[in-house]
């Protein structure tokens, strides 16, 4: 099928009826396959192994991980930034593209948004998991307490606490608002207690004109509200590094570079997640290569920005003639962590270039495999930034080499299991495609079809 990309209506089968859309989208809520249970089992196994590692760390201390002084941050912060980055695409697609009236967002935004929320929930685990005394991690939250403790608002970590929690709150509210009409649809398709739950979630949605008017105003408002957060949250995360003195971190380039990277990885992750969804549930009417091609184009744009940032980083370091700065960038490319650096370059800068060919960016296998390479590349990008800079700080007498060990890998597995647990639950309790918005794209039912539609 060739769809003209400027014709929004063309992407959906105009023969589809409203009822058919609801039925198609809600089908996974009522059908459970063996594959689903297998997936869930895998996820629970991952959680069990990761939990075992976390408990060891809790009892014996962070020393069970592979840290080697002065590398005080390693895989955990890498994975934190990775998940925060993943959490970017959802709100970008749902809010920013909504404001830009990009029709291609319709099919993918719900799942992308869910991915965002779960990614942020996963990321939020890590600040707690990586601190030395995780039972005291709540001290990072400012609240009136008898110990008269107060927080240091100079610290980028505090900004981080606020940036991530704000982003999470707003994304969740925005996600929920989008779901209200769809919850109503589920309410109408179910019976008994379940229906009551959805009725509660739908907060009395009837689809009246008045409700729609309020709804659209609220939706637009939150879209506008969430848009700056898309830029701010990863900028703030980047300040965890850019505000520090450490060579290789201390750079004004970081906020745009991190945001571009986050969108890059987020869009790649959307492709990675939605492609199986579309194939398994046979949703090619709603999510198809037209959507993926747009996502791939987003990746091409942000990937180009990223490549530019990589080049500029090295250029600035060389041009500055700062021995520490240039030392660290040389070290990244040819030092102990050369393999990390080159995995990053190949996965982020080279492999995605195949998408410049239209055939490649509309081919499912090619899309999916390249998107996974981008995910890997983006994880290694963060590892490259964090580990190499700390391993080669200012004083050469304190240099070291760090590699994560099985405990940290276990926690990494835990994070993926945790994320997929939520995602697997999501596809069974919520519509993964926005029913109401898809219907908006369909030609409105004509009067002659009113009876048909009313059934």
């Amino acid at each position, binding site marked *: 099928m060739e769809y003209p990309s400027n014709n929004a209506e063309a992407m959906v089968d105009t023969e589809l009826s409203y009822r058919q859309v609801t039925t198609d989208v809600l089908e996974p809520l009522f059908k459970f396959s063996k594959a689903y249970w297998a997936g869930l089992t895998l996820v629970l196994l991952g959680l069990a192994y990761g939990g075992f590692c976390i408990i060891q760390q809790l009892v*014996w201390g962070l020393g069970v991980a592979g840290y080697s002084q002065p590398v005080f941050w390693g895989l955990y912060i890498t994975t934190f930034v990775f998940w925060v980055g993943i959490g970017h695409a959802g709100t970008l697609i749902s809010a920013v593209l909504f404001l830009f009236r990009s029709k291609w967002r319709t099919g993918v935004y719900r799942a992308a948004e869910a991915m965002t929320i779960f990614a942020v929930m996963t990321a939020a685990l890590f600040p707690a998991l990586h*601190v*030395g005394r995780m039972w005291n991690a709540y001290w990072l939250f400012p609240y009136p307490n008898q110990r008269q*403790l107060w927080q240091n608002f100079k610290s980028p970590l505090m900004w981080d606490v606020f940036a991530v929690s704000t982003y999470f709150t707003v994304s969740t509210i925005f996600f929920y608002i989008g779901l209200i009409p769809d919850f109503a649809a589920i309410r109408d398709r179910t019976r008994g207690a379940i229906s009551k739950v959805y009725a509660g979630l739908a907060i009395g949605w009837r689809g009246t004109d008045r409700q729609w008017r309020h709804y659209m105003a609220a939706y637009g408002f939150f879209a506008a509200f969430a848009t700056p957060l898309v830029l701010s949250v990863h900028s703030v995360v980047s300040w965890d590094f850019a505000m520090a003195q*450490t060579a290789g971190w201390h750079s004004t380039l970081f906020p745009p570079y991190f945001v571009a990277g986050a969108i890059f990885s987020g869009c790649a992750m959307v492709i990675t997640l939605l492609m199986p969804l579309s194939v398994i549930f046979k949703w090619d009417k709603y999510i198809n290569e037209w959507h993926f091609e747009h996502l791939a184009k987003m990746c091409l744009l942000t990937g180009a920005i990223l490549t530019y940032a990589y080049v500029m980083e090295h250029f600035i370091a060389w041009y500055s*003639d700062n021995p520490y700065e240039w030392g660290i960038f040389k070290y990244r490319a040819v030092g102990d962590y050369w393999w990390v650096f080159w995995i990053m370059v190949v996965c982020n800068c080279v492999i995605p270039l195949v998408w410049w060919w239209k055939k490649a960016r509309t081919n499912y296998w090619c899309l999916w495999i390249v998107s996974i390479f981008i995910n890997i590349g983006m994880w290694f990008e963060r590892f490259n930034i964090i580990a190499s800079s700390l391993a080669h700080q200012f004083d050469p*007498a304190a240099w070291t080499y760090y590699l994560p060990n099985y405990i940290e890998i276990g926690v990494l597995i835990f994070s993926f299991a945790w994320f997929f647990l939520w995602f697997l639950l999501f596809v069974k309790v919520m519509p993964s495609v926005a029913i109401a918005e898809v219907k908006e794209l369909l030609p409105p039912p004509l009067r002659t079809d009113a009876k048909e539609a009313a059934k």
Partner: protein
Amino acid sequence: MADINRRDFLKVLGISGTASACSIDPVTPIEQVLPYVVTPDQIVPGIATWFATQCTACSEGCGVLAKNREGRVVMLERNPEHPTNKGSLCAMGIADLQATYSPDRFEGPMIAGRRATWDQGMEATIAAVKAAKANGKRVAWLGKHRTGATAALANDVMGALGGETIRWEPLGKQALRKATKAVFGIDGIPTYTLDQAETVLSFGADFLSTWGTPEHNRHYGLGRDPDHCGFIAQFWSVEPRLSNTSVNVDIHLSAAPGTEAGVALALAKLVAEKRAYSGPASALLQGIDAEALVAASGVRMERIVELADRMASHVSVVMPGGTTTVNEVDVAIATLVLNEVAGNVGETVTFGQDSNLAGLHDYEDVAAVLADAENIGVLFLDELDIAYTTPGTAANDALLAVGQLIAFQNEPSESLTDTAIVLPPGTTLETWGDNEAVHGRHTLQQPAMTSLHDTRCTGDVLLELAKGLGIELPAVTASVRAEGDGEAIDGGPAEAVEPAPTPDSFLAYLAEWWKANVFAKTDETDFDAFWRTSVQTGGHFFSRLGKGADFGLEALPSAGAAQEGLTLGLFPHHMTFDGRHANRPWAHEVPEPVTGYVWGTWAEISPKMEADLGLEEDDTITLTTSAGSVEVAYFASPGIRDDMVAVVMGNGHDGGGRYADLTGANPVQLLTGMKYAGDTVTVAKASKTTTISSRLGNLTQDNRPINYIVKAKDIGSGKGPGGIVNLHHPPIDERLTQAGLLDMYPEPEHPTYRFAMAVDLNSCTGCAACQVACYSENNIAVVGPEQNRRGRNMGWLRLSRYWEGSGEEPDVRWQPVMCQHCSHAPCEGVCPVLATYHNLDGLNAMIYNRCVGTRYCANNCPYSARRFNYHTYDWPEPFLMMLNPEVNNRTMGVMEKCTFCIQRIREAKSDYRDHGQLVPDEALTKLLPCASACGSDSITFGNLKDPDSQVSEKFQSERAYAMLSELNTKPGVRYLARISHSEKDYGHGGGH
């Protein structure tokens, strides 16, 4: 649920809630506060009592002050009153505290591996001696070097039993003693005074580390201090490798092993010519062909001529060979000849205040005893690990062959046999004793705490033994001095002392001995007062004038020849020494300064050999000689010759205690005889990977502008702070600061104090004493080999070592890096919970119990000065008693770092506040343990708000610079750049 009412519900809620709240806290340790039932006399809780006593870590006889808190000694520091080490206490001496608290100590006498009572132990001992006598067998004593009353008593008892007393030191200076005998006819060794010498030449003597006292370090510091004596001394060394001393010299001459004597003789010839020397040695030097000897050694002739010129026109001192010197005696003789022709004898090389070697034997005498083991009924072993420190199995065989082994030792060792009787004497800190390690310096050892275990000091045992055997000991009289030593100049005529009956206790014996041998030489009249003063000051020290000696050498020694093949040389570990301190965890945990290695044995090989063998960082190598082979880690030292392999001694025990047995290998097993250098060795790559690790990341400073060199000719050009330091980045423009463009935040306020430190890199020798002192004062965790390998060493003070050059100008630079207490500290801003902050005294304070462990501070510290508790590192009992009660112990998940010993600052501040005063400068300069331990006075602490303080002065030095000043962290530490005599270009950084 209907029958539960509100009150019951609340009860259940309250109980279960409290119970769960109580049970979830995994970290709070249980603490008990127990009051004294009867308050001990001397103890004021919270106030330390200091006892002057002696250090027995080696046989140099330094004085120490033992800091006793609530009945336990928690720290050893220098005794400023003691002439041997007024400058400092070395790393080994500070770590000797752990001997007392070793978890492997015998808790009482042992008979054949079983715990016994003292009655049983003494009974068995007496019975063994009686049996030996009855069977007509010999009684022998093998022990470490002892002097003073302790030695006298043992000599008397052994004399009465008709046995020999053999005292031996594996690292004793017997070669030098023989050389002195040959050259000057004196039984003794000379004293080398470095502080007046403008040229110091060492033939491998590691005088800044394991050879001699920390006084050498002080002299090194003074000699290099341009403000001290108007010159900057030059240090030279001749050695096939770079020892801890040689890395600090200006010029290193890498003579082929075996040719050092030739180099010394060639130098002597040239110096004699230049000085027109016509003394007794001139005739001997006639036949010397300087050029040929120098050519044979592989050293450049120009350097030798340069050195000879210097020695001819400047005051100099030449020190003899160390353990890695082949032909030690010949080299020692040649250096004495060189000293003679350079006019040093009587000036910088003196006699009369020299080490007391009375009773010290050669290894040949030890070997004779071991060979005769069959005929020995009882062998007394006095704190000497003969089995570990001697090659081959002779010692083990002998120990098994003797009738009964009676060992005076506190901890297990390889030398103990299954049938041995162990009579633990208690440690230096628990018992009475004394030494006269240097003629005329009588150091008194007093118990600084009660014994932790059921011990009895060797003196008491000997007295009891004498009593049990019915021996009549000779009366305590003035000991006969060897000929050729000076008289006490403050001593009056010896008074006639009444011979007293044999005392009951060693304390009484000691007092008697002192009365006869020390008191009698003074003009004091009241012995009790004299005794009290001596106990208080740590001894009685006669000052003697050093004097010259008459040259009497008959024939020059052999000039030697270069060794065939690859030469093996062993050198002592800077802390485990010859292996006697291997069970002190600090000895392993504190990195060896040159390599940064912790926990293990390594061999120094040349980088060329590393490449030839295809070695990688974690590989091990097998060293093989005709006597045996060991597998060790390696260090590719840029300073060792290709035809030399040097191995560190002191590790790799088997039965020496839990820490001693943990890592390493014993290289003594490679020796074909009791000579540490000269065996031919082969090196091969081994299959295992090493367990040793280095705390130092990189060999060099990677062209970064961190550690600076200034040229000697630039000194005194009158520029301001940092004026002659070649900074890569220009100093920060004051105008920027004033315009508020440089700093976002205002300068922190320091109303009264701004504590700061100046570290003079010019005199720092990399001896590691500051590091051990820091460990001891701050209860820094020992993490062990495995955690060290994972990069978790907790030392607050990193001794950064940058190896910037090799060859003739080694240029190895030290930089002790601790928390820099920045005014704009990068760590403070990033802590989300304000667990670290800048206080009004200028300290970067750390609140342990507030820290949640984000470790952001540590990432942001450009000095990498912070340490993180990855685990709770426990101390086995009874090490807990050793911990400083002033300092919190940190548990897992908490960040820590140098605090400038805030506990000491607080103590000083409150002491002076009681009198309404500020802490004066003299109370601050050496307040910190690192500063106090520093042998070369490199570390100065003080208050910057006091413009006249020493530290303020040093901050104004033209050599002063802040580490990484371009980051504008405004540190409270300044480094004073090292001075170089070299003309080399020391530019830093790239691109300009």
